[in-house]
């Protein structure tokens, strides 16, 4: 009779199967969890823009205030990207012949706007408002990172709901006097938490976590 004999390695099959059964779901879960998290899919998005405009040069080196260009950031929901005219305030005279500024010149001559590519983009069902944050002393740096050091703007934070709520529950360490909101390198010079708590107390800042604040 030709008996079937299990090969010797099959002794390990059972424990191996158990180990695999433990590892595979954990593995699959972590791939989905980490792979699907906005920190992987969204953060670090750095689209190439139609003009090589650099915040590091204009803000970091020349010291132009954010509100010179993003004029509506304190008064409306949008910060707004500046129109070509704003750039031409200076570039009619400065580096007027530069190859890098050719698209601006064309846009100025034809009236066709420059099509900048959106970096930060919330889903369309979320209501966000810049003025509500900037006039209550939340600095650009809390949500956009050190823009004054960026050659090309990229997304620094996740912009997920968890991220919004984290700050809405504990805004202290992001608060400062309103006059410093556009100074991205500003520090309170004392413990940020006690400083923030004082500001929060004084200005009575209580960000809402009701669903209707952001979904309406």
């Amino acid at each position, binding site marked *: 009779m030709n008996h079937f004999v299990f090969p010797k390695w099959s002794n390990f099959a059972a424990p191996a199967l158990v180990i695999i059964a433990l590892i595979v779901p954990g593995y699959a879960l972590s791939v989905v969890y980490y*792979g699907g998290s906005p920190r992987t899919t969204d953060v670090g998005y750095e689209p190439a823009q139609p003009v090589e405009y650099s915040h590091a040069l204009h803000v970091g080196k020349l010291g132009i205030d954010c509100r010179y260009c993003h004029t509506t950031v304190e008064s409306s929901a949008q910060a707004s990207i500046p129109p070509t005219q704003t750039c031409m305030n200076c570039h009619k*005279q400065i580096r*007027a012949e530069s190859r890098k500024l050719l698209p601006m010149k064309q846009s100025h001559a034809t009236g066709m706007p420059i099509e900048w590519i959106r970096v930060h983009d919330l889903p369309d069902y979320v209501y966000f408002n810049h003025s509500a944050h900037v006039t209550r002393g939340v600095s650009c740096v809390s949500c956009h990172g050190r823009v004054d050091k960026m050659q090309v703007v990229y997304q620094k934070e996740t912009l997920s709901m968890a991220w919004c709520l984290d700050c809405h529950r504990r805004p202290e360490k992001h608060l400062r006097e309103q006059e410093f909101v556009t100074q991205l390198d500003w520090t309170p010079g004392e413990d940020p938490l006690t400083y923030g708590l004082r500001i929060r107390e004084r200005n009575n800042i209580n960000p809402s976590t009701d669903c209707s604040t952001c979904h309406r």
Partner: protein
Amino acid sequence: MSKSVIIGGMIAALLALLPLLFIARARVVRSDRTRIHLIQDMDNQPKFKAQSSNPLFADRRAMRPRVLGTVAREQLNEDTRLYLGMSNGEFVPTNPLPITEALLKRGQERYDIFCAACHGLAGYGDGMVAIRADELQEGTWTPPTSYHNDLMREREDGHLFNTITNGIRNMAAYGPQIPAQDRWAIVAYIRALQRSQNAKLEDVPEELRASLR
């Protein structure tokens, strides 16, 4: 047999590490590829948001400029003193807004945002942009005017306002960037700057004069 199973298992395990490596890479490297967006929900709705594009119009702007010859509600701006700095075709000599500390503070803030880059924080025309433009030596740049000479001190407030609104010679118009009230606040602040750089001892309250000597 057992060897091939072991090798196969090892290859599978190595391949299984690849997605984790890609994920780790995506978490540290910045990229200009469009964001991966598996579950769309209602993230991108067929509506036009501020500053988005609309292919129906020749200039592709979804936000339409005001039609020529029309006036939007609440933008009639009839008060020529306030909105043009003129009355009866002449520049108004003084600021139509009451000069308060709040107005000056606002003016200082707005001046530092919109003017200091060229005109300098104290108004001598030595802002960072002016310095850099001088260094470039391109021949197209006119230095910003200093506010601290008799000609500038004698300009009417309405003239300064008009300069901000419509620009002057080589300076661009700042009317579109700054609301009228803020332009008047800046005018008031420029007046304060001028006084601060041209003060005589008599301008200092008597009890403080001793501390200056």
